[in-house]
C-alpha cells in the first residue's frame, strides 16, 4: 500500500528564525563562527583600536595654517593642552607648488595645469570606449601640445617632430601595396628617422623664423614634483606598450635570431634593478653615444624607464599570447588573414584582454618607480622635494606629513588604476552568458 497525500492549503513564505537572520546571523557567521574565529575578531578589533587611538588624536589636532613647525606645535599645545601632538599640514599648504611642479617658474604654473587638463581629455577616449572617437585626435596631438606647453620654445619644433609620424604614415601607405606590412613599416620608420635627422630641424627653424609662436622656454632642470612623475610616467607608459608588444611578438616568433635578440633584451632588463638602469642613463649613456651629443637627463631617464617597463610588459603579453588556443591562429589563417592582420584583428585583442591585469599592474609599478629618479639627481615628489622642503629650518622637524601627503596621492592614482583595470576586465568580458 502507498501513503497518499494531497495538500489542501499552500504554505505562505516565512522569515527564517531570528537566530538565522539579520545582524545576529551575520555576526555569528562572520565574526564568531568558532573559537579561533572569535579570538581573531578580538585581536583584529584590538589592532584597529590601537592604530586608531594613536593616529586619530594626531589627525584631529591637524593644523593647516602656520609659518613653521614650531608655530604648528605652539598652536596645537595652545588649543589642546601641553604635550598634545598634531599633524602639521601647514607645510603642505605652504609648499604644495613645489610638490606639484618642482622649481617650475611660479608665473607659468598655468602651463603644466593646462597640460594636465588636456591630458585628462586625451586619456578619456582611450580609457572609456563609449566616448566619441573624435576625441582621439586630442590623444594623437597630445604629445606635441604637452611638449609645447611644458618646455615652451617655438611651436614648430613639436609640430615638425609630429610631421615625422605623418611622413612615416605616408611612406607606409604608399609602399604597402608594393611590399608587405613588415617592409613597408620598416621603410616608413626609416623615412621618419631621415626626416627627424635631416629635415625636421631645418623645417622648424625656417617656420620659426617666419612665424615664431613661441612660449617662454623652461629648462628641464626646473621640472619636479608630480609634474616630473607624470612626465616620466605618462611618456614611458605610452611608449612601453607598443615596444612591449613588439618584444612579445619577437619572443614568440619562430625566427631564431629575432627570438634570441628579444629574449636577451627582456631577460637582461628584467635581471637588473631599475636603479642600475637609471645610473646607466645618467652615467653610461654618455659613453655609448657620439662624443658631442648633448642629451637631456629627463629624456635619458624616460628612455631607460620605457625599456624597463617594455621588458616586463613583453612577459605579461607573452603570457596572454600563450593562453590563446591554437584554433584562433588556425581560423585566422584559414580565412586568409596575413600575419599582421591576424595579429591586429584576432590575436592581439584577445591576448591584451587576457593580460589587462598584468599590464595595469606593470603600469602601476612603473608609476611608483618614477620616485627612483631622485637617485640620479632629479627632483621627484617623494624624496627630492621633501628633502628640499626639510632643508628649510622652519620645516626641519617635520617627519611624517610630507610622506603621508605624497603617499596619499600615489595611493589614489595607483588604486584608481587597479580599479579601472577591474572595470575594464568586466566590461570586455564576452565569453560568459
Amino acid at each position, binding site marked *: 500500500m502507498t501513503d497518499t497525500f494531497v495538500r489542501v492549503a499552500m504554505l505562505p513564505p516565512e522569515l527564517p528564525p531570528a537566530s538565522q537572520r539579520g545582524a545576529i546571523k551575520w555576526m555569528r557567521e562572520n*565574526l564568531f563562527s568558532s573559537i579561533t574565529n572569535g579570538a581573531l575578531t578580538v585581536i583584529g578589533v584590538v589592532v584597529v583600536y590601537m592604530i586608531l587611538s594613536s593616529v586619530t588624536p594626531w589627525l584631529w589636532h591637524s593644523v593647516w595654517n602656520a609659518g613653521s613647525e614650531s608655530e604648528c606645535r605652539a598652536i596645537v599645545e595652545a588649543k589642546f593642552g601641553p604635550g598634545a601632538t598634531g599633524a602639521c599640514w601647514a607645510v603642505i599648504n605652504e609648499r604644495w607648488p613645489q610638490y606639484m611642479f618642482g622649481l617650475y617658474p611660479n608665473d607659468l604654473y598655468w602651463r603644466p595645469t593646462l597640460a594636465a587638463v588636456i591630458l585628462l581629455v586625451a586619456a578619456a577616449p582611450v580609457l572609456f570606449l563609449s566616448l566619441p572617437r573624435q576625441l582621439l585626435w586630442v590623444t594623437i596631438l597630445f604629445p606635441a601640445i604637452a611638449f609645447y606647453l611644458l618646455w615652451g620654445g617655438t611651436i614648430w619644433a613639436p609640430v615638425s617632430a609630429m610631421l615625422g609620424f605623418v611622413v612615416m604614415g605616408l611612406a607606409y601607405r604608399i609602399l604597402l601595396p608594393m611590399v608587405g606590412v613588415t617592409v613597408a613599416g620598416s621603410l616608413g620608420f626609416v623615412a621618419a628617422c631621415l626626416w627627424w635627422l635631416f629635415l625636421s630641424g631645418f623645417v622648424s627653424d625656417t617656420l620659426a623664423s617666419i612665424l615664431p609662436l613661441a612660449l617662454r622656454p623652461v629648462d628641464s632642470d626646473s621640472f619636479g614634483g608630480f609634474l616630473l612623475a607624470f612626465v616620466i610616467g605618462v611618456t614611458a607608459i605610452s611608449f612601453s606598450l607598443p615596444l612591449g608588444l613588439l618584444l612579445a611578438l619577437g619572443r614568440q616568433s619562430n625566427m631564431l635570431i629575432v627570438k634570441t635578440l628579444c629574449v636577451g633584451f627582456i631577460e637582461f632588463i628584467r635581471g637588473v634593478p631599475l636603479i*642600475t638602469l637609471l645610473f646607466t642613463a645618467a652615467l653610461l649613456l*654618455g659613453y655609448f653615444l*657620439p*662624443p658631442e651629443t648633448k642629451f637631456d637627463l629627463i629624456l635619458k631617464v624616460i628612455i631607460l624607464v620605457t625599456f624597463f617597463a617594455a621588458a616586463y610588459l613583453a612577459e605579461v603579453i607573452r603570457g596572454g599570447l600563450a593562453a590563446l588556443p591554437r584554433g584562433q591562429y588556425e581560423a585566422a589563417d584559414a580565412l586568409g588573414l596575413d600575419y599582421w592582420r591576424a595579429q591586429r584583428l584576432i590575436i592581439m585583442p584577445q591576448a591584451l584582454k587576457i593580460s589587462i591585469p598584468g599590464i595595469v599592474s606593470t603600469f602601476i609599478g612603473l608609476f611608483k618607480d618614477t620616485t*627612483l629618479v631622485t637617485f640620479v639627481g632629479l627632483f621627484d615628489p617623494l624624496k627630492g622635494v621633501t628633502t628640499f622642503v626639510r632643508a628649510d629650518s622652519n620645516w626641519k622637524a617635520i617627519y611624517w606629513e610630507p610622506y603621508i601627503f605624497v603617499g596619499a596621492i600615489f*595611493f589614489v592614482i595607483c588604486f584608481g588604476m*587597479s580599479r579601472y583595470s577591474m572595470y575594464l576586465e568586466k566590461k570586455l568580458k564576452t565569453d560568459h552568458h
Partner: protein
Amino acid sequence: MATTSDVPNASFRLSMLIYDTRYRAITIQVVVLILFGLALAWLLNNTAQNLAVKGKQFDYTFLGSRAGYDITQALIPYTNDSSHFRALLVGLINTLVLALIGCILATFVGVTAGVLRLSKNWVVARLMTVYVEIFRNIPLLLWILFIFVPLTELTQPPSAFKLTEAMIAAGEEPVATMKLDHTVAFTNRGTYMPFPVLEHSVPAIPGVPVNATFLVIVLVLAGSFYANARIVMAARSVQEATGVRPTTWWKSLLVLFGPIAVLLAALGFHLNYPVPPTGFNFKGGFVVPHPFLALLVALTLYTGAFIAEIVRAGILAISRGQTEAAYALGLRPNRTMNLVILPQALRVIIPPLISQYLNLTKNTSLGIAVSYMDLRGTLGGVTLNQTGRELECMLLMMGIYLTISLIISTLMNFYNNSVRLKER
C-alpha cells in the same frame, strides 16, 4: 610519377626573398642581424672614442687596489686597507643577507595575510585587504623613508637611556626608555635587541676546523628530522598494510623539539638583553643598524603584500569543484586541504612567488636611499666615485645582479618543469 616541389625551383626570382615562406624568414633575420651588428659596432665605436677623449682605459685592475673607505656593516673581515674587490664582496654579502632574511619574513607575512584575507572573519579579512591595498599602491621608497627618517631623527643617543643613582635619588626619569617590556632600545646609533647566547660550549674536537658547538647543534637537528621522517614512513607503511593511520603528531613534536630543547638547556641557552648604559653605550644585546632595519621592515611589508595577493589568488584558482569533489569522496576538510587543494595551489603560487623573491632581491638596491652598504653602495657607490671607473663598475654590477637573477629563474624553471601537469 609524382612531381615533387621539395627542391627550390630553378627559376629563383628576387621577389621570392619576400614572398616565399622558405626565404622570407631568412631574409628578415639577415636584415635584423645586420642592423643589430651595425648598432652594436656603432655603440662600441662611440664608447672607444669617448674613453679616448677622456683618456681612460677599460680595465678591472683597480679592483685589486686599496679601497680606503670604511663599511659599517661588514660580515667578513674588512678594513679600509682591504681591496676594492673585498669591498665588493662585503657589499654582495650585505645584499644577499638582506634579500634572504627579507624573503623569509615576507613569505611569512604574505602567507599569513593571504590566508587571513580569505578567512570568513569579516574584521580580519577587511584588515588584511586594507594592508595589502595600502602597501601595494604606495612606492617602496616611501615605506623605507617613512621608517628610516623617524628612526634616525627622532631617536636619542644611548646615553639618554642612562639612569644614574643621582637621578633615582632625585626621582628623575631617563630621557628615553626602552620599548617592548624593556627589551629593545631604539637609539640614534641603531636598534639594540636581545640576542641568543650559549653559556657553555662544546670543547673543540681536534682536527675538525668547524666550531664544535655549532656542529653538535646541526647534528642534533639533523637527527631529529631523520627520526621524524622515520616516524612518518612507519605510519605510512602501517596505513598501507592495515588501512588505519596511527596518530603521529605528538611523536613528531616530541622528536623534533625534544632533543634540541634538552641540548640548548644543557648548553645554558638564554637571551642576552641589552642593558642601559652607565657610561656612553649599551652593554650586551645586539645592534641592528638603522639602514638594515628600515630596509628589512619596508621590504618585508611591501613584498608581503604582493605575496598575500599571490597566495590568495592561488587558493582561489583551485576551482570549487575540486573541494566539492574531495568532500563528496568523504575527505575531511583538513585532508582536502593537504591532499587536494595545497598541492594544486602551490603549483599556481610558486612561480609568481619566486618572481617576487627576485623583485625583493633587486629592490634591496633601494638601500641607496638610506646609505646601506650593499653591492650598489660599495661597488656602484663609493668605489665608482673614488676610482671614476663608471663603465667598469656599472657593467660589473649589472653582471652580478643579472647572474643572481638568472640563477634564481633557472631554479624556478626546473621547478616549473618538474611540477607541470601532465597533459596531452
